[in-house]
């Protein structure tokens, strides 16, 4: 249980002497490179409340793991302040930060039994044996690994090993529990199961969670708040609903939500103080809420990227604002059908609930079929050419 504050946290990997001499510093993906070195995390600010579940999410190399490792004390902090429960811990050793960490690779000690693995941190703290036994048994009970306590990790499956790793972390009752892609090594089914178990676990133990993943589904389902990162910079911080409904920029809108948001080149128009969007010669009326936001930001009429989520597109609508497309691929997902349409020169994805489909097309939708679709002005996202959401 603890509050965690990350204030202007920065991580710079210094250039090597060789690079400095040669005067050339390599670009590592899109990370910023300064005279000091490669900036892996830049000006990270986040106030984490007590018992909050924070998920850091982003593509590979975005700095999410580096940030977590800085909180853990496994990486030096190049700049800024890290506070746990109001105490500055920048230079405090990992063992004195009262944190625990679960690794993607489980990082169990292969020469110890499950019981010894879980007891290891307590033994190092010189906790009395009776208390160690009690805590280990309790944690094993919570995680359903009691029957494996006397086995070695090699005799366990991936999911069981990950439970042991979580067990080793929770026996210590840490202030902050850090998880670095804990489910990435598991297969899809087990991942779903373990995800649900982490949600349950969270209800049973009183601690602050910081969870790193590249999987947006995990981020959406687990996090109280999500931090979306790219190239070492925070893109947006918000609840799953907020980042889904109001993505701050094009990157966030594309990263959150499966399948990805559809984008069209369109024009934002303003007449008599009222904003409209023109797409393919058709006018889309915007909701009052959006109007107000755009007006508040004093947004000028301009070329925009219009974003629309696949689940917000309706088929078979009526009216003059209909768009037409040809079905490329129809993917039956069970509860819904994902349609890939060729329309407005783009590959447009539409999610149609199977229930809706049955009433109209009993045979399903075939490739090559012509189809009409539409969407409302209340669900579109308007991004400027600088990729920022104009409503922000």
């Amino acid at each position, binding site marked *: 249980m603890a509050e965690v504050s990350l204030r202007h946290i920065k991580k710079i990997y210094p250039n090597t002497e060789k690079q400095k001499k040669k005067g050339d510093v390599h670009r590592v993906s899109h990370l910023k490179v300064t005279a000091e070195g490669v900036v892996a995390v830049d000006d990270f600010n986040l106030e984490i409340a007590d018992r909050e579940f924070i998920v850091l999410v982003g593509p590979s190399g975005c700095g999410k793991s580096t940030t977590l490792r800085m909180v853990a004390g*496994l990486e030096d902090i190049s700049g800024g302040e890290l506070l746990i429960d109001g105490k500055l811990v920048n230079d405090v050793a990992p*063992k004195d930060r009262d944190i*625990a*960490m679960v690794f993607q690779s489980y990082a169990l*000690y292969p020469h110890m039994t499950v019981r010894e693995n879980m007891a*290891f941190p307590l033994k190092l703290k010189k906790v009395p044996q009776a208390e160690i036994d009690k805590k280990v048994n309790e944690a094993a009970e919570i995680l359903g690994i009691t029957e494996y306590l006397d086995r*070695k990790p*090699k005799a366990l499956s991936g999911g069981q090993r990950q439970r042991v790793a979580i067990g080793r972390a929770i026996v210590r009752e840490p202030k902050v529990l850090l998880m670095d892609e804990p489910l990435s090594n598991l297969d899809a089914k087990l991942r779903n199961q373990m995800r649900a178990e982490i949600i349950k676990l969270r209800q049973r133990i009183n601690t602050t969670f910081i969870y790193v993943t590249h999987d947006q589904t995990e981020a959406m389902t687990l996090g109280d708040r999500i931090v979306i990162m790219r190239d070492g910079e925070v893109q947006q911080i918000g609840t799953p609903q907020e980042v889904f409904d109001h993505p701050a920029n094009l990157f966030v809108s594309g990263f959150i939500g499966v399948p990805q948001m559809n984008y069209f080149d369109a024009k934002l128009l303003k007449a008599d103080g009222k904003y409209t969007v023109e797409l393919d010669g058709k006018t889309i009326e915007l909701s009052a809420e959006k109007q107000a936001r755009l007006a508040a930001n004093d947004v000028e009429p301009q070329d925009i990227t219009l974003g629309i989520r696949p689940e917000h597109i309706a088929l078979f609508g009526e009216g003059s604002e209909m768009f037409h497309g040809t079905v490329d691929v129809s993917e039956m997902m069970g509860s819904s059908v994902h349609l890939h349409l060729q329309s407005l020169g783009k590959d447009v994805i539409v999610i149609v609930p199977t229930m809706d489909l049955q009433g109209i097309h009993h045979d399903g939708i075939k490739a090559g079929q012509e189809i009409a679709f539409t969407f409302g002005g209340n669900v579109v996202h308007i991004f400027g050419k600088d990729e920022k959401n104009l409503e922000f």
Partner: protein
Amino acid sequence: MDGKKKAGFFKNPLRRWSWLFMGPVCAAFAIGFVWPFIQGIYLSFCKFKLIRDAKFIGFGNYVSAFADETFKHAFWYTALFAIVSLVLINVLAFTIAYLLTQGLKRSNLYRTVFFMPNLIGGIVLGYIWSMIFDGILSHFNTSILLESKYGFWGLIILVCWQQIGYMMIIYIAGLQAVSEDMLEAAKIDGATKMQTLFKVTIPNVMPSITICTFLGLTNGFKLFDQNLALTAGQPFIIQPDGSNIKTTEMLALNIYNTFYNSSSGSQGTAQAKAVIFFILVAGLGLLQLAYTRKREVQQ
């Protein structure tokens, strides 16, 4: 053999020609190892000057081998040497390997430097080191050949210098295979550097420790050329019965000296000693392997 299998045998060129590749190795192994080994065991029960005139005499050679004071001395001397060198070489090699895997600058250069002595032959090393030791000891008006403790520690220094680099490479490979995540987990779990080393790192490099202790033990027992070149067993102790014991003579050198001794029947005794020596080294090696293997962990 059914038709299918037969067809497979002739279709698969690797199988068809395997004898061509295996043959020379098998022949060399049989001619160079298996046959001399069997003949050696037979000869240990014979009296002979030449192999052709070997005469079976039963256990006589073994009786005289066990009665030989020089052999007993060489055995205890070798055992002591093997234990001391085993411990020193392994501790030092592991320490150097551990330091060189801690992200030290120019660690590759150090690895090469530490490994290089291993490339020099034992006889050459023996003569070089005898010059070095005598150079130093001459300041104290003595020589490595005059006191057996100098001979002992001289040989220990020599084998350490020669073998640490080799063992270090094995330990480095083992240490590099220890997962970084596991060490970080230990760090977070609250282990100090020493606790991490003894409770996490060392149990996970047991396969390397097994190999290195096996090599150290057998190398220690089998040492010959360094022993011959450095002291050749000197100094002597003259026994009341007029015979002399070479105080720094190890088992292999003792067997060699016995074989080329001019007295009649000594070849058979040397042969018996060689068989005892083989049983000893093989037995010790297997015992040690069985012991350390149990401590190895699988990931």
